């Protein structure tokens, strides 16, 4: 059944001069949808044309409405030669297809050209009339809502969580078609942009169909990725969690977060996908079995019980097993039928099966916080998937039994820390203790997860960002040899990253990691691993032991001395960190309960409390003990570990950072919010570097980047960097060298894009700096409110000016944040998903300020275009924003560079919560549970 798409071109402004003779432009506009094109009249001799066109009407299938973008091209009319294109605007009309989202798209859009960047703006109005569709066999899925947010969106309630949806489409990459040899770079870029836009439309439609089939009405945690495989094609794939969402009546929002009581327990496990043999724990306690049976019946129908959510409705999460991950190395040139999705589907199927079996091994029937990624280098492609094995409450997956929220879950308040697997048949060695919260059930000593810290979790002290960085060299190789070399290295890298994380965690005296994200990227002659997570001290888990250093052969005196100074430094750091993160766990409990705690644990606890007093005796006490975390420094790896442990620079005062949505242990947020993106690329000059050398460099790079951020944001202290998202890439020794020179002795380009999309929040502390905090706090709030006032003084002045200046409506301020919420505000409406892909190319790199200048303006342009689209939908913010892809290629010799950026997020309307109390509800509950926990102990 068709729908009617209507578009109207109102005006343009700030157009570039296209006619050098008159310094003016004769602009007209082409509006294209599908195969239909309309044109406006030429508006002669103006840089601010007023077309005020009629309504252009397109009658199209709703299938096309979902797939195709509206394409608006602004051109300069030329009587004698071909018309010159000024630029284009692609408008995704998907938000208009859902009844609840936006009804009209209207506003100024930057006119974008892939060679020149933004060239003026155009004012466009777009509407859609949809006719009701009752056809059961339809191919469209209009009305299914998509959210990038990895939690249940704020103004909805999850009636039902259906589960995992995935889809993958493949197409030939226009850049690699034969025609690319003869067409202009602009045409090639535009073909690519258009294709990806089409493909993601198609992908969304297909996923929507699956959701409808499952009976859902929305996709939450929608994660779409591009794989630029090169010769073998271009893959767009997406995963998400299908849900049935009910719209909440405003006012009930608060309850949602209050009645939460599930806590998390995890164990430390990284199951690397490279064939680590794991036995499945079959036996389980009677209660557990019951729960599992219920859940299994609900989940069994699903092929993959995966959830892309990282934040859950109350009562949803029961237990957590630990991180599961799988990686697999594939050769792209071995795909038999590159244009068909089958091969890739099979690859992913394989990996998902592996994840599923890992989860089973942990006694869990579901995986939460699930995500997938790829890294491609030439013909080698690593597919990775990771998530957190968990036990879920089955009620959410069956229909009609959802109403009672989490009320009965309150009972499990003390039981939440159970391990989901069986104590005597553990899938991996771990030390179990009785829960420090309820004293009845077993908990592991450390836990790693990929999800966000649940709001209700009892936390001691504050959290912090923990990163493990690793660099491994690899021989240059081709094809299968290369793939084998990489697969052989992967398990070791995973293991080392894990060890590093563990060490750093202990050094900070913490016992749990949230939001763990491990990224491994391949270069021609090296592998890079970067693991980021937020460390916290969970009150329910045992206190971590210290780190002991031991030399294998304590032969001579100076060596011993060396060890003891190292040990002293480590111990000092631990003590310092305890203070820094305000970790003062209650210590008296042990003696009271006594009996159920194995001796081992008690001694460890004792030790960890005495650490600060006496290092020497400490060394003796713990030496050789099984449970102590011993680093033997005869081992070169360990030396490296210690080095990296101690070289982590402390954060400057007033700064906090984490990679999760909220900072554990900090509860007072202001609405001053700043999102930024930073990209760095380094070139390694020295071709023959050792592993250690590389590691050192890599660590320094990351540290420097963080330092830079702290410095830049120093005026915003106290401030917290949230959702700090690092991405690393080792661009192939691409194009530049390989094409033109022989690759002999070329310097390896370790180009690292620690692209951190991060988010900075002002916060106020209740304890320290009371006097200061108010002032530093007021200022940004004032700033923000000024930003929001629609008609500032300056602008009104310009409106009055005598010359007819191109002044339209004032620019709406659009906030962008990778968080799923905006502190101190309430999201009243979700307007639809933003998913944009841009290519920018230049042939005058030097003139544009070199690579930095080029990328700087491109990122600024991307931000501007995202803001413009959100504003046109009527929104004032983007939440869950992320820059998924940022591929940068340069060829300085030819003065050329190209960059691809993919961004996504949810457009929303928010209102300031000025009358409500200053603390977001979600965090309040966390706080109360903390105090509650203290009360019970």
């Amino acid at each position, binding site marked *: 059944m068709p729908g009617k798409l209507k578009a109207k071109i109102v005006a343009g402004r700030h157009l570039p001069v296209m006619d050098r003779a008159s310094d003016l432009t004769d602009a007209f506009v082409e509006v294209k949808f599908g195969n239909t094109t309309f044109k406006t009249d030429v508006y002669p001799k103006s840089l601010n044309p007023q077309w005020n066109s009629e309504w252009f009407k397109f009658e199209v299938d709703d299938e096309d409405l979902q797939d195709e973008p509206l394409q608006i091209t602004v051109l300069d009319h030329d009587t004698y030669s071909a018309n010159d294109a000024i630029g284009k605007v692609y408008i995704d009309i998907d938000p208009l297809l859902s009844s609840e989202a936006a009804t009209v798209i209207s506003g100024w859009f930057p006119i974008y050209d892939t060679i020149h960047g933004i060239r003026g703006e155009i004012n466009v109005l777009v509407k859609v009339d949809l006719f009701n569709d009752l056809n059961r066999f339809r191919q469209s899925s209009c009305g299914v809502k998509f959210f990038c947010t990895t939690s249940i969106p704020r103004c909805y309630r999850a009636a039902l969580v259906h589960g995992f949806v995935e889809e993958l489409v493949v197409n030939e990459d226009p850049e690699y078609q034969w025609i690319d040899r003869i067409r202009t770079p602009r045409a090639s870029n535009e073909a690519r942009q258009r294709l990806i836009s089409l493909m993601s439309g198609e992908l969304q439609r297909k996923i929507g169909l699956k959701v409808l089939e499952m009976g859902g009405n929305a996709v939450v945690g929608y994660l779409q990725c591009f794989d630029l495989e090169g010769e073998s094609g271009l893959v767009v794939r997406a995963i998400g969690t299908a849900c049935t969402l009910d719209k909440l009546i405003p006012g009930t929002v608060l309850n949602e977060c209050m009645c939460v009581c599930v806590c998390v327990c995890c164990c430390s496990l990284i199951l690397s996908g490279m064939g680590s043999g794991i036995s499945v724990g079959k036996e389980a306690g009677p209660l557990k079995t019951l729960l599992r049976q219920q859940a299994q019946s609900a989940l069994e129908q699903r092929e993959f019980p995966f959830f892309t959510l990282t934040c859950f409705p109350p009562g949803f999460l029961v237990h957590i097993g630990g991180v599961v991950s799988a990686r697999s190395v594939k050769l792209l040139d071995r795909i038999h039928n590159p244009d068909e999705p089958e091969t890739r589907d099979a690859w992913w199927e394989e990996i998902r099966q592996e994840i599923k079996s890992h989860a089973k091994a942990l006694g869990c029937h579901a995986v939460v916080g699930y995500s997938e990624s790829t890294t491609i280098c030439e013909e080698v492609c690593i597919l990775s998937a990771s998530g957190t094995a968990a036990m879920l409450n089955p009620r959410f997956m069956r229909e009609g039994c959802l109403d009672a929220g989490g009320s009965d879950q309150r009972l499990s308040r003390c039981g939440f820390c159970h391990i989901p697997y069986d104590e005597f048949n553990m899938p991996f060695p771990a030390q179990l203790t009785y829960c420090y919260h309820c004293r009845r059930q077993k908990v592991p000593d450390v836990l790693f997860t990929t999800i966000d810290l649940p709001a209700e979790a009892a936390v001691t002290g504050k959290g912090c960002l923990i990163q493990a960085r690793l660099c491994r060299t690899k021989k240059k190789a081709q094809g299968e040899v290369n793939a084998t070399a990489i697969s052989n290295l992967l398990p070791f890298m995973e293991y080392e990253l894990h060890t590093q994380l563990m060490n750093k965690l202990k050094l900070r005296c913490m016992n749990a990691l949230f939001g763990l994200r491990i990224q491994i990227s391949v270069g021609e002659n090296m592998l890079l691993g970067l693991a980021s997570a937020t460390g916290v001290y969970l009150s329910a888990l045992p206190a971590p032991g210290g780190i002991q250093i031991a030399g294998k052969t304590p032969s001579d005196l100076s060596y011993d001395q060396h060890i003891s100074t190292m040990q002293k430094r480590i111990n000092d750091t631990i003590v310092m960190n305890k203070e820094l993160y305000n970790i003062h766990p209650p210590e008296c409990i042990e003696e009271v309960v006594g009996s159920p705690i194995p001796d081992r644990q008690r001694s460890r606890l004792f030790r960890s409390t005495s650490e600060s007093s006496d290092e020497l005796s400490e060394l003796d006490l713990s030496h050789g003990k099984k449970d102590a975390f011993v680093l033997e420094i005869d081992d070169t790896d360990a030396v490296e570990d210690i080095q990296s442990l101690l070289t982590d620079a402390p954060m400057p005062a007033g700064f906090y950072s984490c990679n999760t949505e909220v900072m554990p242990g900090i509860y007072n947020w202001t609405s001053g919010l*700043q999102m930024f993106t930073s990209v*760095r690329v380094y070139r390694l000059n020295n071709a023959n570097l050792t592993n250690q050398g590389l590691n050192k460099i890599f660590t320094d790079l990351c540290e420097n980047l963080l330092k830079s951020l702290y410095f830049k944001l120093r005026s915003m202290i106290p401030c917290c960097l949230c959702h700090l998202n690092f991405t690393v890439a080792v661009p192939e020794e691409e194009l530049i060298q390989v094409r033109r020179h022989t690759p002999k002795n070329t310097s390896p380009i370790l180009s690292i894009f620690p692209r951190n999309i991060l988010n900075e929040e002002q916060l106020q502390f209740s304890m320290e700096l009371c006097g200061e905090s108010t002032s530093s706090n007021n200022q940004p709030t004032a700033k923000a409110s000024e930003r929001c006032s629609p008609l500032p003084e300056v602008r009104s002045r310009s409106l009055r000016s005598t010359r007819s200046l191109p002044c339209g409506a004032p620019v709406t301020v659009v906030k962008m944040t990778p968080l799923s919420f905006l502190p101190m505000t309430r999201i009243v409406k979700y307007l639809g998903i933003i998913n944009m892909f841009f290519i920018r190319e230049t042939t005058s790199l030097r003139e544009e300020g070199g690579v930095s200048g080029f990328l700087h303006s491109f990122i600024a342009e991307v931000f501007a275009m995202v803001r413009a689209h959100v504003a046109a939908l009527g929104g004032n913010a983007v939440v869950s924003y992320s820059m998924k892809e940022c591929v940068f290629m340069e060829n300085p010799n030819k003065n050329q560079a190209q960059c691809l950026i993919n961004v996504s997020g949810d457009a929303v309307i928010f209102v300031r919560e000025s009358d409500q109390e200053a603390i977001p509800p979600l965090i309040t509950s966390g706080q109360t549970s903390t105090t509650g926990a203290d009360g019970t102990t």
Partner: protein
Amino acid sequence: MSVELDVFVGNTTIMDEEVYQFWLDGYTVNDAVKVRMEGGVLEECEASAEVLRSDTMDQYRTFQMCERLLHSPAKLANQLLFQIPPHRQTMLIERYYTFDGVFVREVLGKKLSKGTKKDLDDVSAKTGVTLKSCRRQFDNFKRVFKVVEELKGPLVENIRQHFLLSDKLARDYAAIVFFANNRFETGKKKLHYLTFQDFAFCAGQLISNWTVGALDNMLEDMDVDLEKEFLQDLKELKILITDKDLLDQHKSLVCTALRGKTKAFNEMEANFKNLSRGLVNIAAKLTNTKDVRDFFIDLVEKTFVLPMRLPCRSDKWTAGDMRLYLTHYTNSAHILDTFKHQVVWDRYMGVIKSCILKMYHD
């Protein structure tokens, strides 16, 4: 290992006012880093020189990208590329258009042409303002000049609206435009002691009293040019010095009024005729463009300013003396029966009096 690329972009554009000033002042990145390091930012935040350098580069890039917008400040408010809070926008514009007093003194009254721009390196060497900054300031003058040249209505208001400047700065620009348009000579040695603000004040007086717009600001023409008719009328004032009776009468009226009120009375009496001749001659010659250019030199040379500033004279007129003298000089003319040009006289002397009083200092 070297940094190939280093970029930091915020959704709300982050700017450091201190670095902005360095950029405006034409410091290179290296110089700015050096100054910042000496400024002690490093100790504050435990940052390294590398960090500081990267930050400075980022900021410089941002400013360079904004510069295009700053050329037409109205665009800054409705452009989409940078999200800048309004108070920041105002700061950016105001600072961008702010100029150095020493620099403007060098180009004031000169034609804003390519030739003048070529000589900016000399100006730079002389004033100590970096060449880059000189160019920026010069281009600003030129840009403002070009825009308001074609506009109707009051000069100051036009500048304020088009460049979104503060009232004070708009007035200064009006003065610069006015001086450039009329090509007033300000570079002569005798005028060196005068600051830009002295000239700006005089320009303000001239603009609001002697131009076409002064009478009716909705009039077709603009108030960059002096009113022709008025200049023509000024010739009539010559009667005050050519008619012997009138001159004597005028003198005695002034002397009667001044007697006993000031120590400098004797000087005043002795110089009356010279001074009156000087003043009226300036008025009579203003129809010539060349003499308009020399207006300020003439004021200094031929009237009070120079003789009265001679330091060796013990009986130097104070500013108060000067005010007293000029007041009576102006008012007495009204009592002269045969003097018919009262309106023109007032319009002329009003401006002359305030200009002289402003210029009457060391």
